């Protein structure tokens, strides 16, 4: 079945755009990617999209945002907005999964394992900042596959 979750991408995108330069400037390792290594999210099959999205929301909520606190109040406020939006969207996706409309195939499981491996290959703060800096990769992929 399909999983239609309403979330205000415009607000999340605006919040991220406001802090993108600041966050990405804190990521010294430009040659690595958490979300796109070795394969782009765009390669994920449509049937697996819902599951990988849910995995990624859980990843950001549980692992990323909490390690991105900065000395900049404005940045912290925007991170809070994004984190609370992800939490709200994850809840809706979770309800969808409970109704078996968000099946996890082998590919999405494999892809998410790779993302976790990329993440755990760095120290936690670097990994979290890099992941946050790659949020536009996730947002682009979500909007393209809508």
């Amino acid at each position, binding site marked *: 079945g399909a999983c239609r979750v309403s979330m205000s991408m415009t607000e999340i995108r605006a919040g991220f755009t406001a802090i993108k330069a600041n966050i990405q400037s804190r990521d010294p390792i430009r040659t690595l990617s958490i979300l796109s290594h070795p394969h782009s999210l765009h390669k994920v099959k449509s049937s697996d999209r819902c599951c990988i999205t849910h995995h990624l929301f859980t990843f950001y909520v549980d692992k990323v945002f909490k390690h991105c606190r900065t000395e900049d109040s404005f940045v912290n406020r925007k991170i809070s907005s994004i984190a609370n939006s*992800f939490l*709200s969207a994850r809840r809706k996706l979770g309800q969808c999964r409970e109704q078996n409309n968000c099946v996890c195939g082998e590919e999405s499981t494999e892809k998410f394992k790779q993302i976790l491996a990329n993440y755990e290959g760095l120290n936690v703060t670097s990994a979290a900042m890099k992941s946050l800096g790659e949020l536009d990769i996730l947002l682009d992929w979500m909007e393209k596959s809508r």
Partner: protein
Amino acid sequence: GEALLPAPQSISILSTNMKHFLTWSPVIVQGATVRYSVEFQGEYEREHANGSWIPISECSLTAATVCNLTEDIAASVAYKLRVRAELGAARSPWGTTEGFFNRVTTSLTPPLLRVLADGYHLLVELADMGPAFQFRVLYWRKGQESRVQQKVTREVSSVVHLDTMEAGAEYCVKAQTHVEAINRSSSFSPTQCVRAQGDTSVWL
């Protein structure tokens, strides 16, 4: 120390059309200007960030008894707000909102609109209410209420063309707002009707 300053009282949130304001009663200290600081906590902070609070810099050490929360209440989850009084080094205990605030409860008012007849053209102009708003405009020829037409638009502060009217006929318009982020709509505005210019052709 802290005991000198009481916590602000009557803390409440006023939320209309997705604009959210925290207000509280002033703490009175004769001959002194008491200042206030406001912090917020979303569901994420409660559940995943050890119940941390985030200061709102525009409302740190403010003398006002109101704080604009709109930029920070940017998700449809349950938020808590707190405010304390500060005077020199003295700080009051925090006063915290009772219960939670979720922006889905904001009150939505009908849009302000201006309906114009420009010759045979039926036009409408909608007041700007912010980026979260789109407008559902209904219009019909008077007497033909069963043939209502609809236009959904985000265009504000400029004239939107609705229809080409028949000479001398009267047309009516009403509108409501819709906020996608919370999936709610306002009630309809009062109906406004205008008449198209009469037929200028002359039978010879």
